[in-house]
């Protein structure tokens, strides 16, 4: 088995315009970041709403929220992605369908599908963390809120959520990192994010070891730097008096 090692391959021209292969990786990383951050915003907002809903005293509301969590947690991500990309568009109103399938670029429609899919998929996990965080607070916190004359919304807004979020930063961090890793499924519906660009480079140059090594290094560095950043956030926001990292 002969294999021609060539670490300079990333600086070779791709033959398309004046691009070198490294440009593909840069553009792929850009898509990966855009996907993960947009999905994370959806996940955080929806997950918080659902997490709050799960702790409300109303049985109907908390029941719906827990059904939501079970649904999104028990279907594989890839199946969910296929549903959002292949199935849901066919059930949209006609004008939207034409817009989604013809008017926008294929990469845009794939992007929208992945963001919605990943956002909802992750929101179910964020929901569970938010619920755990709220339930970890002593019952006295809610009562104190009511005793001060706050209504339910105000109690959540000013008393429960600010504390809950600070407690759950570590598990939330790992969900945040998962969004970046999970965004690689986008390559399976043809979106040219980091993994897809890696595969393409490997196929074009036959230097697959180099291509995959670079991709691994990028993911690894991304993950590590996000982790360091989140540790810093955790330290900055830690609740004084608790056992958590950096608490005083």
């Amino acid at each position, binding site marked *: 088995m002969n294999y021609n090692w060539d670490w300079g391959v990333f600086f070779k021209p791709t033959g398309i315009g004046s691009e070198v292969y490294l440009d593909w990786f840069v553009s792929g990383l850009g898509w990966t970041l855009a996907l993960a951050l947009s999905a994370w915003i959806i996940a955080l907002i929806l997950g918080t709403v659902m997490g709050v809903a799960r702790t409300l005293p109303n049985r109907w509301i908390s029941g719906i929220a827990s059904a939501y969590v079970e649904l999104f947690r028990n279907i594989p991500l890839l199946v969910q992605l296929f549903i959002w990309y292949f199935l849901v568009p066919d059930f949209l109103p006609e004008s939207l369908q034409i817009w989604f399938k013809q008017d926008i670029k294929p990469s845009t429609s794939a992007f929208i599908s992945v963001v919605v899919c990943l956002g909802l998929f992750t929101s179910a996990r964020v929901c569970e963390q938010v619920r755990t965080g709220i339930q970890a607070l002593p019952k006295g916190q809610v009562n104190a809120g009511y005793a001060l004359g706050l209504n339910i919304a105000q109690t959540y807004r000013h008393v429960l959520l600010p504390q809950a979020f600070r407690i759950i930063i570590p598990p939330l961090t790992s969900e945040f990192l998962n969004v970046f*890793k999970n965004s690689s499924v986008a390559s399976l519906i043809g979106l040219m994010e980091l993994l897809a660009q890696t595969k393409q480079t490997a196929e074009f140059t036959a230097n697959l070891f180099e291509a995959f090594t670079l991709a691994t290094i990028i993911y690894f560095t991304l993950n590590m730097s996000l982790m360091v950043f989140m540790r810093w956030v955790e330290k900055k926001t830690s609740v004084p008096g608790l056992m958590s990292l950096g608490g005083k």
Partner: protein
Amino acid sequence: MDLSNIVPALPGLVEGMILTLELLFFAVLGGVALGTLLALARMSSNPVLSKLAGFYVNYFRSIPLLLVITWFYFMVPFIIGWITGRPTPIGAFTSCLIAFMMFEAAYYCEIVRAGIQSISKGQANAAYALGMTYSQAMRLIILPQAFRKMMPLLLMQSIILFQDTSLVYAVGLMDFLNTARSKGDIVGQPHEFLLLAGAVYFLISFSASMIVKRLQKKLAV
């Protein structure tokens, strides 16, 4: 929605599910075994061994599973070729299996480590006081108790793995999802078959996680 086409497709779907379950079974077996070794290495007093195991775990936890599956699909034949000196095609199933084992081992390692650390130090001391060696103490005293404690978490991780096996789609292996997709395309009902696949995955994962939750309550001390 017309479901009449699903019946003739059933034997194929069952075959796909068998492949999925085979993949899951061997991946869990290999993953837990390798994960346990990694956990022991991570907790060993040998700094080189523990650093290496720590790096392995951090490495696999920071890259996407899909990257690992694709990597291994391309790489494993080459590596075997270099070792044995001639090109050896090993097929997508084996390369996926190796990818799952090595990737999941990093996650199982953390579960096993937490499990072992939750066992009181007195248990190990008592074992050594009885004259047991390190491996006897681990095998006969610590690990059986640790595994009992971490069984729910190991099973939960395996349910996640069951869902993640669908990623073998990337290398064209005919698992349950891929079979459902191709059958759906053949009969021109991709939507129905996709929903069917989703429903089957949901039912299996959901009922399995209910059973695990029950087990968790039962095993709770």
